[in-house]
């Protein structure tokens, strides 16, 4: 799994690629913790190139959301393939996150 961070205006975009599981989720967490420690005002996680995500990945995103909320920032997810969205639906977390079709739509929603 690969994680890269780029910036677009006020938003930090975390690009995740590959399979997110118990082994790889800490790498995604490291990127999110770095951004939230720096109080990034808007964190967008681009999941469009994620082929698989288990509950370890979902729990990491929940932690990211909670950390951003603590300082009043924005946390958005973008580009979830149907199989990834499935995991969020089963976990009943679809309504907990701001989920967008793609990063462009998520960027437009950044206040």
């Amino acid at each position, binding site marked *: 799994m690969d994680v890269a961070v780029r910036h677009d205006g006020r938003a930090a975009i975390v690009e995740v690629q590959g*399979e997110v*599981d*118990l*082994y790889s989720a800490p790498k995604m967490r490291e990127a999110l913790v770095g951004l939230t420690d720096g109080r990034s005002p808007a964190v967008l996680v681009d999941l469009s190139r994620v082929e*698989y995500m*288990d*509950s*370890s990945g*979902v*729990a990491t995103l*929940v932690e990211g959301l909670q950390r951003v909320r603590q300082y009043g920032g924005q946390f958005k997810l973008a580009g979830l393939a*149907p*199989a990834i969205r*499935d*995991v969020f639906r*089963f*976990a*009943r*977390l679809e309504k907990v996150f701001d989920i967008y079709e793609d990063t462009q739509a998520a960027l437009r929603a950044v206040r």
Partner: protein
Amino acid sequence: MSETFQIEVSSSPRLLQVVRAAVGQYGRLLDFTEEETHRLKTAVDEALTNIIRHSYGGEAGQRIVVTFLLSGARLEILLRDFGRKPDPARVAPREPDLSRPGGLGLPLIRSVMDEVEFDLSPERGTLLRLVKHLRAERGAR
């Protein structure tokens, strides 16, 4: 017709992707759709993750045996570990809860599989039995 195969894997998180690949291959062999295959992978992956995290407390190098048994339209997956037994209250059916250990993985497994049963009777460890009923036109032919 029936068939079986077994994977023995140590409790190393980096091997999860290897088991998922095998499950994916078997799903395709059973004519599962991509969606069904993905869900089967999720169930096995979440079960292994729980074993690594909770039965073995994150300790690598411990033994896990995964057995696949196909009998007609019934696919049974047995996961045997030799670590700490789960608290029966923790494995009881309940709503997803991210604040508890295994709070999300087990509800995910239950949402995917038709039967989920924890056998705590072995002297050491646990036998987790997952069952999926295949549609009539699928399975061993």
